[in-house]
């Protein structure tokens, strides 16, 4: 399993052709207390850069973008009732989607942990 990071502050952990997507702890920290998550549905297909959901904090709304081309295979339904989990465990239990990777070559465009740490300073 390898974890990659996007400039939009998402993480994607890849295991073969399946992957889990979420937002980084840094993103959750920047958003503040999260009160609502709008998710897409299982079976929907996305291209890299498509909006795949919205996260709302007390302060503002913020979009989630597909870090690679993918198809949603599972939605973390617990976030609907408990959006605050995204503040508590954004890189753990509060993952947002499980997806099927459509084009593994796109992973090369994402960052590793060191590069992401450098980005957020």
């Amino acid at each position, binding site marked *: 399993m390898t974890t990659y990071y996007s400039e939009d502050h998402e993480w994607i952990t890849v295991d073969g052709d399946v992957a889990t997507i979420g937002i980084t702890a840094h993103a959750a920290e920047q958003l*503040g207390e999260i*009160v609502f998550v*709008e998710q897409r549905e299982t079976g929907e297909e996305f291209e890299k850069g498509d909006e795949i959901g919205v996260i709302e904090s*007390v302060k*503002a709304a913020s979009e989630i973008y597909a870090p690679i081309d993918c198809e949603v295979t599972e939605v973390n339904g617990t976030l609907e009732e408990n959006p605050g989990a995204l503040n508590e465990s954004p890189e753990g239990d509060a993952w947002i989607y499980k997806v099927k990777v459509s084009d593994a070559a796109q992973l090369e465009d994402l960052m590793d942990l060191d590069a992401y740490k450098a980005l957020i300073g």
Partner: protein
Amino acid sequence: MSEAPKRTPLYDLHVELGGKMVDFAGWEMPVNYPLGIMGEHNQCREKAALFDVSHMGQVILRGENVGEKLETIGPQAYATLKEGKARYGFFTNEDGGIMDDLIVANAGDHFFVVVNAALRHQDIPHMEANLEGVEVTEIFDRALVAVQGPKAEDVVGALCPPARELKFMETTLAEINGVECRISRLGYTGEDGYEISIPEGDAIDVCRALLAHEDLEPAGLGARDSLRLEAGLCLYGNDIDQSTSPIEASLGWAIQKRRKEEGGFPGATRVQKELAEGAARTLVGIKPTGRAPARQGVEVQCTEGITIGQITSGSFGPTVGGPVAMGYVSKGHGTPGEKVNLIIRGKAQPAEIVALPFVQQNYKR
């Protein structure tokens, strides 16, 4: 050309307390502290919270018959405002729109006015041009803080016993921590509390003395916004502006009877017409049924799918425990209980018109 944001006399204290500083109306202000917006919001509803509002414009008016002269630029009864009393009001333009909302206090030998941070550059020349024979002086050497919440009287009263004697919308001079401050019992959260004008050099010491009380925690602009929204209080630039009349904005309560009847202020024709016939649109409370917050600019439709208005303020209300909003709906709509749809990211989300405020105001009358 953009100027560097200005800092209030409390800047160093905000940084020391872990405030997350953001640019707000040209000022570097804390949006929240480590407690977070929701924690600070709840602190204010349950105990007491300290807000820095020094970015707002503090203005002193001196001269003969200041109250009468203020009545020529706003629809409030300032001529009869007694010494030691404060009043919420606004300046209106010739079309009956709201130029700014403000607090006016009769301080005896002068009037003390607090205006919105972003509008001082409009309001001060406006007063200078229209209040003949009145000396208009903006104060730059004083901080302004708000202590708000059910424990505000205990917090401020512990250091300043005269503060306990003030009632809602009363103002006085009194010492806190050996420093003479102007203390007014009012605020922008729906809770009991005070706004305190402090000489800038003493502001941090006075705030530290207040914060030594176990029931007081600092709160930022984030909580200030969610608190005022739940309390149904308008934010200039969101809910009211140059195009909205006081009657549209459901602010008729802030225009005293004599002024409604006699007029004699800019835009009186429109205000009196709307009082008699109703306004074309009205600001109302709107409660989304689901969990998605409806933000400023979201379209409001009736259940038949016709656009009837727009959200002007919307967020998550921590005390309500769900999204809350205010917005304008056209004439014929806006009765509490009426079902509407909010178009959030292209999808219709159900909501209901509700009476304001969302959270009962808790003033010390």
